């Protein structure tokens, strides 16, 4: 291995002949920088993105093309504005927007999420933490007035809520009231878009049903809080 093309190494004498315990060629190969970079850095990247990126992408595209109901419509401009606000304020870090395909989720929130529901979301806002409830079945659950009051001051509707207030989505009136701005109206429109498609179309697959076969209903919000 000595003197492999580097002048600095010329000053160094050849190593003594290899004693019997010398590592195998495979091991010496695995220790090389080039192996680590090409096989480790590049190879594993390619492998992982093919196996867990490209393959499921092809599958999902195929599946969505087949399962998207004819009634599905992408967000309109107002909902899109609301989606922008939703992303900007990090709502997705306290609220998920996908109902998992497990009994407790389906029982609490409604039909499990379908891939086609999200095909107009750049990027998806599924989320990884639920401080507040899942919002993907929010459509039609609350009145617009409730949403405005809740966004302006969550504690006015739910006294123990820890959700932040969003007064900058409202215009303060001299008389003391507040009127929703375009952004607040968009946000509420977006909340009403969440889950509307699946209500209109009905759940498409088995996954949309609660495990006992009944159509799931949500129960997290009924009754006094």
């Amino acid at each position, binding site marked *: 291995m000595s003197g492999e093309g580097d002048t600095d190494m010329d000053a160094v004498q050849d*190593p003594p002949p290899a004693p019997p*315990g*010398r590592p195998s060629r495979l091991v010496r190969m695995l220790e090389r920088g080039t192996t680590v970079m090409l096989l480790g850095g590049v190879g594993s990247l390619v492998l992982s993105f093919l196996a867990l990126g490209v393959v499921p992408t092809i599958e999902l595209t195929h599946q969505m093309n087949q399962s998207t109901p004819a009634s599905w419509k992408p967000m309109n401009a107002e909902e899109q504005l609301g989606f922008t606000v939703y992303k900007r304020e990090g709502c997705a870090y306290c609220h998920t927007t996908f109902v998992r395909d497990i009994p407790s989720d389906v029982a609490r929130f409604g039909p499990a999420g379908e891939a086609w529901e999200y095909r107009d979301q750049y990027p998806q806002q599924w989320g990884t933490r639920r401080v507040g409830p899942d919002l993907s079945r929010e459509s039609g659950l609350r009145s617009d007035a409730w949403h405005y009051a809740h966004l302006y001051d969550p504690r006015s509707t739910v006294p123990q809520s820890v959700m932040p207030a969003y007064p900058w989505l409202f215009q303060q009136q001299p008389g003391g009231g507040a009127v929703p701005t375009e952004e607040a109206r968009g946000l509420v429109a977006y909340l009403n878009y969440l889950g509307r498609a699946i209500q209109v179309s009905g759940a498409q697959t088995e996954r949309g049903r609660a495990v006992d076969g009944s159509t799931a209903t949500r129960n997290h919000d009924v009754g006094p809080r």
Partner: protein
Amino acid sequence: MTIPPPRTTAELPPDPSGGPSADRQAPQHGAATFYDPDRHPWPPNAAQVRLFVLALALLGLPLAWWAVSR
């Protein structure tokens, strides 16, 4: 089991690989080779490697099975 005390550098046996193992040295204190052939024969013989892989599989496969069962 008694654990042998740490050795001084001078006591370390020479690197048996004989190769240009500058990089296989423990860094900074350039005199210590980073594996000790006395205690840990290298390379492990084929039987040891097979045992190791078998142990990982025996432990991992049932766990993996459990992990994806609902």
